[in-house]
């Protein structure tokens, strides 16, 4: 009993879902990134030793910190939009405006965080 999708990979990639599609993809990447990071982080704390040290060195790297903070902050802000709109379905007509508000909150916060991460890494 498998689903039958009559969509080729090429047309799937050509699909233009615009703003909502972008937030959907980034929400997924953010969620996956955090799931992998948190799992590895808990296992590293549990196991300790050389594996724990190696993983902690990865987490201290400023590139990784920028990536994981992007995942956490975007997932949190986009998740708040999804939660508010889904629990109050009448607001669904304002979906696109809500996405603009979301970027207006995300970009300055993330920019400050990237500035702090890079200036901390630079000493």
């Amino acid at each position: 009993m498998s689903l039958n999708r009559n969509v080729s990979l090429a047309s799937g990639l050509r699909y233009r879902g615009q703003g909502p599609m972008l937030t959907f993809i980034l929400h997924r990447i953010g969620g996956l990134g955090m799931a992998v990071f948190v799992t590895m982080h808990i296992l590293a704390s549990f196991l300790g030793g050389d594996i724990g040290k190696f993983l902690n060195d990865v987490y201290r790297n400023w590139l990784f910190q920028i990536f994981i903070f992007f995942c956490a902050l975007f997932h949190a802000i986009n998740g708040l939009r999804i939660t508010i709109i889904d629990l109050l379905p009448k607001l669904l007509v304002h979906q696109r405006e809500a996405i603009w508000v979301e970027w207006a909150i995300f970009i300055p916060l993330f920019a400050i965080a990237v500035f702090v991460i890079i200036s901390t890494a630079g000493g």
Partner: protein
Amino acid sequence: MATTKPRTLSLSKRGLNFEMFMWLFTRLSALGMYALILVAIIGALVMGAREQMNLADVLRWGFMPNSGHVQSVPLDNADAWATPFWRLTASALLLLAVAHGVHGLVVIADDYIDTARGRLIVRWLSIAMMISMSLIGLYVLWTS
């Protein structure tokens, strides 16, 4: 059409199946996690984070209020950061995050695995992962 008819069924007519329950749980656990993170950040500020911590340390503590996360910070009163209250807050955050996250992985897997057998395997794997990560996480939180 002049009159707008509601296009959604009420919950009592639709019934609450597992997928519907998890849909609701994902949203409510998100609200719960925002509240717990806010409590952790406010708690850090009350306990003196303004003078003793930088932004990165506050965020590390905020996303998981575990005393191990402030080990490298020179704190005036380190004991206040490892009380049962903070361990319970961290445990609640852990359990919500693991359930929310593992269900999220199942949702993603369901988009790419479309056989009934494959989906059954993913469900059993997710249950095993949820239980084991919750137990390992609780062990780390309560023994650190």
